[in-house]
């Protein structure tokens, strides 16, 4: 009798556990609600700083926006007749509306927002590496070391602090260490490691 009761108890526990897991599968959404992060605020964007394409293609430009968390968002792209967009692998230009795009950060908490985009080669688009970001008023200068003995680049900042540097080919971030010089003379290294 005791054995029967024990078996019944074990069976009840197993069935209950299975019900619990099944209920979790049924009622817990696949994935989680997206954590709120910074995205651009519509109506706050402007083109801020242009840079030449290394092979003479359409110029690169930077779209800056305020972010929903009080910071800034920066998004690199191509500009043709003041239209901001992208060039697809087949070489066609597509205008880009403002979306939940761009790299957002907060210049009140650190002196720069810094990122690198990699554009692989397509049938009619050469590969590009674009270093870009935005600098606060505390920044006096930006230096980017380049591989292969190329001279150090000093991208200048636009009216809203945006800067970008377009380079040919695909370059690993670690080959483009950045040094930020602040107005008080301090330097901050960004080695990407």
């Amino acid at each position, binding site marked *: 009798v005791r054995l029967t009761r024990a078996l019944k108890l074990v069976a009840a526990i197993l069935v209950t556990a299975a019900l*619990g897991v099944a209920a979790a599968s049924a009622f817990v959404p696949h994935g989680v609600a997206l954590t709120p992060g910074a995205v651009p605020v519509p109506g706050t964007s402007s083109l801020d700083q242009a840079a030449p394409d290394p092979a003479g293609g359409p110029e690169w430009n930077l779209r800056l926006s305020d972010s929903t968390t009080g910071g800034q968002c920066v998004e690199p792209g191509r500009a043709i007749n003041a239209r901001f967009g992208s060039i697809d692998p087949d070489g066609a230009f597509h205008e880009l509306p403002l979306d939940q795009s761009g790299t957002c950060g907060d210049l009140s908490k650190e002196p720069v927002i810094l990122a690198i985009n990699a554009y692989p080669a397509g049938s009619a688009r050469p590969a590009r590496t674009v270093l870009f970001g935005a600098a606060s008023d505390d920044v006096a200068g930006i230096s980017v070391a380049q591989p292969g003995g190329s001279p150090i680049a000093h991208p200048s900042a636009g009216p809203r602090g945006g800067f970008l540097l377009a380079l040919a080919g695909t370059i690993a971030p670690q080959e483009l260490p950045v040094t930020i010089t602040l107005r008080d003379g301090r330097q901050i290294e960004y080695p990407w490691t």
Partner: protein
Amino acid sequence: MTSAADAAKRTLTTPLLVLTLVCSFSVGAIVRVALADDYHVTCVGHGFVQGTDQNDSSFFGRVWSGCSSTLRTCDLYTSGSLDGGQAATGTTADCNVWSYEFGTFTECASTTHVYDQGVFSSHVHKASNWCG
């Protein structure tokens, strides 16, 4: 005596089964979230984010900032080929790439490869309507 013993067993059995139910639901929920294919949280949210809908070729690879200061990467792939990617550094810059910045790609065959140095290793998140 027998009825008293039975009552005591019932008193113990019911809470045990309720505890089992709660625990198993919790474990199931944790496993389901942790193994989500498109997006999940390991200190920070990261993964594959669809745009307006699942079939408009507009999608994002994201790693929010907040848990590291050195390197976050988010690359987009479609059918195994690199569409484009990004590396972000510093303490506040999010890694955020939008498919439209690189071209037009089949959303359901796309993935994002994400990495946050010192937080999580490189791994892949698939589109929620994965068809690859």
